[in-house]
């Protein structure tokens, strides 16, 4: 592996994260994570509450910085990159899907979907933005709901709008934090099918969950316990 010139999509080297409470009480949350995720993988990050999976997810998503260690995305070290650089990476290379959807209220589905484009450096005209938004909505199958506000959409539809928003800049990787946590079983199945479809199209999907049922959709499961990856648990497939 060491001599392989191939660059993995995600490479973590001895990532630690320690929170400091009241100045001197240190709480280690991640205790040296080293792992690699290749382009096109479908990974479920599992673990009990407090195992550090959300913290790891935030570091992977460039929302948080590791206390030490290196994080390479597409071969670029990002753990110590500038805030603006990390914002650009979040905009271009990463899509987020949240448990509570996080859609802007009283804003149409289309406007929600094209919202990230406002922060994209490339100059797109308004019409181009809307065309891309409609395309993304079509991809998740709710094109006819483009003009509806989140309040007028079901939970499953809202989550699909959120997925369309994550897809708008065609990122290589999508992070989903408990994407089905607020959905009923029927909608859950639909959303999970959506992720499978995206993965089949070549997008890396990394989801955080504590449900075995959901994790079963993934091709590889990474289990976390007390800030470390539990060794020996790999893909069921």
């Amino acid at each position, binding site marked *: 592996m060491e001599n392989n010139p191939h660059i993995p999509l995600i490479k973590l080297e001895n990532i630690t994260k320690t929170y400091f409470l009241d100045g001197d009480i240190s709480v280690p949350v991640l205790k040296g994570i080293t792992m690699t995720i290749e382009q096109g993988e479908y990974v479920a990050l599992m673990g009990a509450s407090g195992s550090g999976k959300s913290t790891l997810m*935030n570091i992977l*998503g460039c*929302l*948080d910085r590791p206390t030490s260690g290196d994080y390479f995305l597409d071969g670029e070290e990002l753990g110590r990159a500038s*805030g*603006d650089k990390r*914002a*650009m990476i*979040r*905009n*271009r290379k990463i899509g*987020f899907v*949240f448990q509570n959807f*996080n859609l*802007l209220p*009283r*804003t149409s589905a289309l406007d929600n979907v094209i*919202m*990230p484009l*406002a*922060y*994209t450096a490339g*100059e797109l005209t308004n019409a181009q933005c809307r065309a891309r938004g409609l395309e993304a909505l079509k991809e998740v199958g709710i094109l006819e709901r483009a003009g509806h506000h989140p309040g007028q959409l079901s939970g499953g539809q809202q989550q699909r709008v959120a997925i369309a*928003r994550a897809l708008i*800049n065609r990122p290589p990787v999508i992070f989903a934090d408990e994407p089905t946590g607020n959905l009923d079983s029927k909608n859950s199945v639909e959303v999970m099918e959506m992720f499978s479809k995206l993965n089949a199209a070549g997008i890396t999907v990394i989801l955080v969950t504590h449900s075995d049922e959901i994790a079963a959709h993934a091709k590889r499961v990474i289990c976390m316990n007390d800030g470390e990856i539990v060794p020996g648990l790999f893909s069921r497939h």
Partner: protein
Amino acid sequence: MKLTATLRISFVSLSRNPTRTLLTTLGIVIGIGAVITMMEIGNGSKTSLRSTIEKMGANSVMVMPGAMRMPGSPRKEMGSAVTLTPADADAIRQECPSVGKCSPVVRGSGTQIVFGNATWLPAAMYGVSPDYLDIRNWQLAEGRCFTDNEVDTNARVCVIGSTIVKELFNGMSPVGSELRIGDVAFEVVGVLKSKGANMIGMDEDDVIMAPWSTLQMRVTGLKMGSATNTTSTVSNYPGDRFVVSGVALYPEQDISVTRDKLFYSRFSQLNQIVFEAVSTDKVEDALKEVSDVLRRRHRIYAGKEDDFHIRNSADFMNMLNSTSTLMTNLLLGVALISLIVGGVGIMNIMLVSVTERTREIGLRMAVGARSKDILLQFLIESTVLCLAGGILGILLGHGASLLIKNIAKWPVESSPGAVIAAVAVSAGVGILFGFYPAWKASKLDPIEALRYE
């Protein structure tokens, strides 16, 4: 991030809460409105003050005799010396090209006037020439003014102000009636148009005017630059040059003879000479010419003090102007304080808005907004808020001043400078007071913000 997109986001988020947006801008609206109203009223009063003074005669200049000085006695008040003569007035009229009209003035106050069984002591009694009315911009309501010929012949005619018409004639037309000034009968030939109170509150209509020659000859009596003046100073006047000071030249005349005799009046004393420059920009030239003529006629050597004083109404105008400017600035200060209060209101609401939209800020950061994008968004939002308030305030202030103009009849004049300043100030207030909330928003931690409930 594109500016148009940011602007659109600001408008959308402001229009989500129209009532709150309106109430938030109220402080700015009132502040800017007050500034605009103050400026318009201030401008209006300045203009009306100028026109009042112009009505009084902006180009008019008064020449008064200087103080009398005698060795060994205190200097007396201005006008006490006998230095201005009708001949001086003639000389000014003839020799100064920048002087338009010119009139001698003799004051005759303290003499009562009688009509029928009514008496009245007018506030002002002027002996003048017909030019005086033009210099003071005074029109006649009725009848005519006396003529130059009547001045030359010491005719007993007068024009009176509306207060006297009311007091003595009970509102009847006085033209053609005969009234007495002291014990001399005068025919009323005209009535002056009412001017109302002047700027220091004196009734300008309580006035009677007669030819200066008549008033001096027949009513007030002469004060000559004269032989009987026991002064050791050498007289400046040609007629006195062969008179030995302190010695009566002629035997003393009986009082009845004195009254009947019409003196040659060229060397008699005037209280004032009033003249008018041909135009406003010629006032300075006129002052110089008049001063030169009087110094030459009075034989004052270079470097010696004038024996007359020239008073220009421009000085008075400047004084009043500075007073009204002071008042305007004071009120403007109060209005600016209300702007600051309005700005604090904006800051307060922007802070609330940042807290309310913590999740939105977190989301925007998660999808790629940089700190400065968030800062700019909130800064633009508060600026848009303040600018909208400013524009509303300009409309409101202008409306208020129009209302004041129509209801209270105050003079009001719109001021484009104030409008530009108001727009700039409201944008400035938006940036100044919006900065702290915007900065706070841009410093949020996206993870915390996304988790915020």
